[in-house]
């Protein structure tokens, strides 16, 4: 066929500064770690703080990962996420208590099996709950932020109350499995074993999520669907199913986050997830909506910064997260690595 007349637009070189600007988010963490080293001085303290900060970041990432899907990709402000975290913790802890023999044994295999079972149970329950939540509560309010806030807060309250009904109003204390107690000491620094586990889980989750979103069209379908659902359907995709699926995945991840967080806190309450919501939203925002990488970097930044600041000047620890968010949004109004543009 005859080609159209070709118009070659003029392209100028992209400057080094612009290229560096692109890579900047990935450099933030090494920069922060180095700055931390000089500010703290004592190497063993620095090592302890760095490792535990990274681990804390990983746990925050696990909780924020589901939100990155639901809030970042699907553009649903779901305060119910906090309730899913709590439910995940309660279900997981119930399983762990039921398998008390396994968690009490000094066998890593048995311990991990119990934790694995707890995670599976928690994710199943929160995933199912997410399905109901999507159908009953969220479906009518896609695209309407204010209403999403109201109905999901309503859902949050109801789920928290149901936790009270089912598990009673008391907080539940739980001890970690035997082999996950205590710390490994290395070069004068103590690293909790449990945190090392969290690092592993977080890293695996990160890689898996990245792969799924890169290799499949799911991310694209959701983003396109948020902007123009009818068009996505007209291209032949069953958008509803994709939305429901992603919502379930996000809820299940909240459940995973709940188990991890519950085991970290060793005490669980119905409001535990709700209390993390502001932090989790901060992570999703500074990372850039819909970006797994962004949320990952954001979570690690938050974890590290919290620890460094709390060590150097505890009074400032309170505002460190908000200062971080403000600084990043001033620098990049859409967050660090936005996949979806904020409206």
């Amino acid at each position, binding site marked *: 066929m005859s080609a159209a007349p070709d118009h070659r637009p003029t392209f100028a070189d992209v400057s080094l500064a612009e290229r560096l600007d692109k890579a900047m988010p990935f450099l933030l963490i090494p920069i922060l770690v180095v700055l931390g080293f000089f500010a703290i001085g004592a190497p063993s303290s620095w090592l302890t703080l760095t490792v535990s900060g990274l681990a804390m970041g990983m746990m925050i990432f696990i909780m924020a990962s589901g939100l990155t899907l639901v809030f970042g990709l699907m553009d649903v402000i779901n305060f119910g996420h906090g309730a899913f975290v709590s439910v995940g913790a309660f279900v997981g802890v119930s399983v762990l208590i039921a398998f008390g023999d396994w968690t009490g044994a000094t066998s890593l295999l048995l311990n991990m099996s119990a934790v694995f079972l707890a995670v599976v149970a928690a994710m199943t329950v929160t995933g199912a709950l997410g399905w109901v939540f999507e159908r009953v509560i969220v479906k009518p309010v896609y695209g309407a932020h204010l209403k999403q806030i109201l109905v999901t807060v309503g859902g949050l309250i109801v789920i928290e109350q149901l936790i*009270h009904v089912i598990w*009673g109003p008391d*907080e539940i*204390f739980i*001890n970690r499995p035997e082999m996950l107690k205590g710390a490994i000491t290395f070069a004068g620094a103590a690293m909790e074993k449990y945190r090392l586990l969290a690092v592993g889980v977080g890293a695996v989750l990160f890689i898996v999520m990245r792969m799924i979103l890169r290799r499949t069209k799911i991310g694209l379908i959701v983003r396109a669907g948020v902007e123009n659902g009818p068009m996505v359907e007209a291209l032949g995709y069953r958008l509803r199913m994709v939305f429901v699926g992603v919502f379930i995945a996000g809820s299940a991840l909240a459940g995973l986050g709940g188990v991890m967080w519950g085991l970290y806190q*060793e005490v669980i309450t119905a409001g535990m997830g709700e209390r993390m919501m502001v932090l989790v939203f901060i992570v999703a925002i500074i990372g850039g909506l819909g970006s797994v990488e962004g949320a990952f970097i954001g979570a690690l930044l938050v974890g590290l910064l919290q620890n*460094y600041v*709390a060590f150097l000047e505890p*009074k400032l620890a309170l505002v460190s997260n908000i200062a971080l968010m403000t600084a990043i949004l001033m620098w990049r109004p859409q967050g660090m690595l936005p996949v979806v543009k904020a409206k």
Partner: protein
Amino acid sequence: EIRIAHVYGKTGPFEAYAAQSHNGLKLGLEYATGGTMEINGEKIVIIEKDTQLKPDIGRAQLEEAYGDDDAHIAVGPVSSGVALAMLPVAEEYERVLIVEPAVADSITGANWNPYIFRTGRNSSQDAIANAVALGGENVTIATLAQDYAFGRDGVVAFKEALEGTGATLAHEEYVPTDTTDFTAAAERIFNAMGEVEGEKKLFIIWAGGGNPMSKINAMEPSRFGVEIATGGNILAALKAYKELPGMEGATYYYYEIPQNPVNDWLVKTHFERFDSPPDFFTAGGMASGIAIVEAIKKAGGAEDTDALIAAMEGLTWETPKGAMTFRPEDHQAMQSMYHFRTELQDGKDYGVPVLVREIGMDEMKIPVRNQ
């Protein structure tokens, strides 16, 4: 009839504490009236009001209790903030309010008025009891507390009380209430305590969620020779003590500690009714219930508030914790506290506080601060 209003946070985060307190109150009234629920032939009516843990609602509920329901005496609430908002209402309506179990010192301190009595312990009592339990020659102590009024006041009282014991306070660490990661705080404490000689203790004052104890314990403070210490808590929270056998501190109540007829009755009845031991706040609730009955008996009725106040000032009565006395100056109930050590026991999935020594009410010099 005698109308008693229980104004407390039935719903909200402290639902569990509220239930304990309410059961305790009812058991107290039952015990003191010998099961009749009548005083001098007059029936006791309990009116329940839910503060939802909100100060403004608490206040409105108390006004309603005094104003619309015409309650003679009110009891409650759980939260200090709510209690403080309620205090002026008692003065305005000129009715007695028995505060139980809110702990803030200022309830019987700066914000006190003559209509306020408190059966629960106050923060100073807690702090001083702990100082007595932990202090000693050649002991160095660091504190970790929440960075708000409750935490700071607690440390100040603890510090004052420590002076007489020969111990020194080496470091005060404050962290935000919602802290979840205690690594930084622990590092700071270890850095401060690492070089110190002698016995080293880290005293943790913590209220509500979060669980600094086991998190700091996981960082192996024993590397620096630091032992963790803290006060007592509700049964559920004692699970966290399991990790710390041998830990010492002072507690307000644990059902196996006090040996007296009232407590025996309480434990027995509680097991019968609820199939569980009475907890931290059950004892306090019961103490307030018994106090009400004793006071009304002594005053010859609940109608005349001035007579009631006169009867209550200096009143000594029996509670699950032994005798208590409302001291006339600030209407705070003087009471014993218990120095404990945690032990692991078969059949209990928590660290059991075992009595080391009862700290009698005369041993603690609780300052009067309502002037």
